[in-house]
């Protein structure tokens, strides 16, 4: 059965009614596809889904987790991490504190990647790491910092590319043992982040659509990667405004590899590689 525009509107309106979640400015197409998948996975028609949403708070959280996309990996897109290492993070080296916000952190791989890189650069102590997501379940996973091993062998390749190799000189190779940061258990099939990493960040539930800045702090660096691709133009602009007003001057916003600021906020930033520096 194909999800219609009407079904989608019905779903969005119900969710808005029974919870704080507002998906009305998400991109229609992607939301429709996700809704379709949920109906198929739970074997429900739209009316039963709506009925369940009205009666079951835990079900709402489950559906929100399924509606939102939670793809992430350790050091996703190594060139971005090279940029962070060589051109972005060094700007903050002499700061007493560095405030970093991972907006839409999902299950936390990006947060751990950042802490590992900061530690290699000798900057972890001065960093304050804030990480948020709309969904409580993925935040719990992020706090645990335990990931599947065999399914994620690519994590180790990425780690080698970013942490062991010098991007400016591929002949240079630093032997950094994985155990410095995480424990691999091949029997249990897990990668477990070391405690000194998993206990550092402040993880909070946060909805970019409704919640503003919940930390009473401004930021030197905001990462929000592959989140705004699911938003429409008007919501994107609201989010850019939120980020802009909560960055320090010269603070940096880092979006996904193929996300750009279109529209009025583009002029308020300068490009540095593929990142945006607040003017």
């Amino acid at each position, binding site marked *: 059965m194909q999800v219609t525009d009407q079904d989608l509107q019905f779903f969005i309106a119900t969710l808005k009614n029974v919870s704080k979640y507002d998906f009305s400015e998400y991109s229609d*197409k992607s939301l429709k596809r996700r809704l379709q998948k949920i109906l198929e996975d739970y074997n429900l028609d739209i009316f039963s889904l709506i009925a369940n949403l009205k009666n079951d708070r835990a079900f709402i959280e489950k559906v929100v987790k399924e509606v939102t*996309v939670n*793809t992430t990996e350790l050091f996703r897109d190594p*060139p971005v991490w090279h940029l962070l290492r060589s051109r972005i993070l060094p700007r903050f080296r002499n700061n007493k504190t560095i405030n970093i916000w991972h907006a839409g952190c999902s299950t936390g791989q990006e947060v751990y990647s950042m802490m590992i890189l900061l530690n290699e650069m000798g900057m972890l102590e001065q960093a304050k790491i804030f990480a948020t997501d709309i969904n409580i379940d993925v935040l719990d996973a992020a706090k645990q910092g335990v990931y599947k091993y065999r399914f994620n062998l690519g994590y180790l390749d990425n780690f080698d590319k970013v942490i062991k190799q010098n991007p400016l000189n591929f002949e240079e190779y630093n032997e950094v043992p994985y155990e410095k940061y995480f424990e691999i258990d091949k029997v249990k099939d897990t990668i477990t982040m070391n405690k000194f990493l998993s206990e550092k960040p402040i993880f909070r539930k946060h909805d970019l659509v409704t919640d503003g800045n919940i930390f009473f702090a401004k930021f030197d660096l905001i990462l929000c990667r592959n989140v705004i691709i699911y938003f429409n133009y008007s919501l994107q602009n609201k989010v850019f405004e939120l980020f802009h007003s909560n960055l320090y001057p010269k603070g940096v916003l880092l979006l996904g590899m193929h996300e750009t600021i279109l529209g009025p906020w583009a002029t308020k930033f300068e490009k540095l590689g593929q990142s945006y520096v607040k003017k």
Partner: protein
Amino acid sequence: MYKAVIIGGSAGSFQVITRILHSLPASFPLPVLLCLHRLKHVRSGFVEALSLKSGIPIIEPDDKEQIKPGKAYLAPANYHMFIELGNKIALSTEDPVNHSRPSIDLSFLTAAQVYRDKLIGVILSGANRDGAYGLKKIKDLGGLAIVQDPNECQVRTMTEASLKMTPVDHVYNTSEIIRFLQTIKT
């Protein structure tokens, strides 16, 4: 009369796609949408390699980028590439489909819904079944379906799966695909 060409390929399609792009005139009247599987670790350098001999510019588009004629849009590594109403690209990091991200089925399906009978879909050599369902949707919605001759393919799984799934308009070898595309006028 056509509004876009969409091409899907996987293992064994790189040389074919290079030849096709090389043959297109700078004045080619349609946008060319490319959804090609690539090895996960070969993420950079692919556009550059394809661009070397291409007759039209090749772009790895950003999300919500406007699609223009005479340009080729290559689905970025590790993203699905959708076509949306208003002639725009939408990218997504949703789960892989047919073990693939980008998935040819998803690009074809969304392009078919936007361009309907004004779309040409081409399936090239490949080692899995991604794309077969998408090509069927292009046919179902009135578009034109072309499949590379399996006898010419380095790996014939994808073209054979497509031929099994839907009747197509043409089974062409690379030279015939090129000749066909060169005759397109608006």
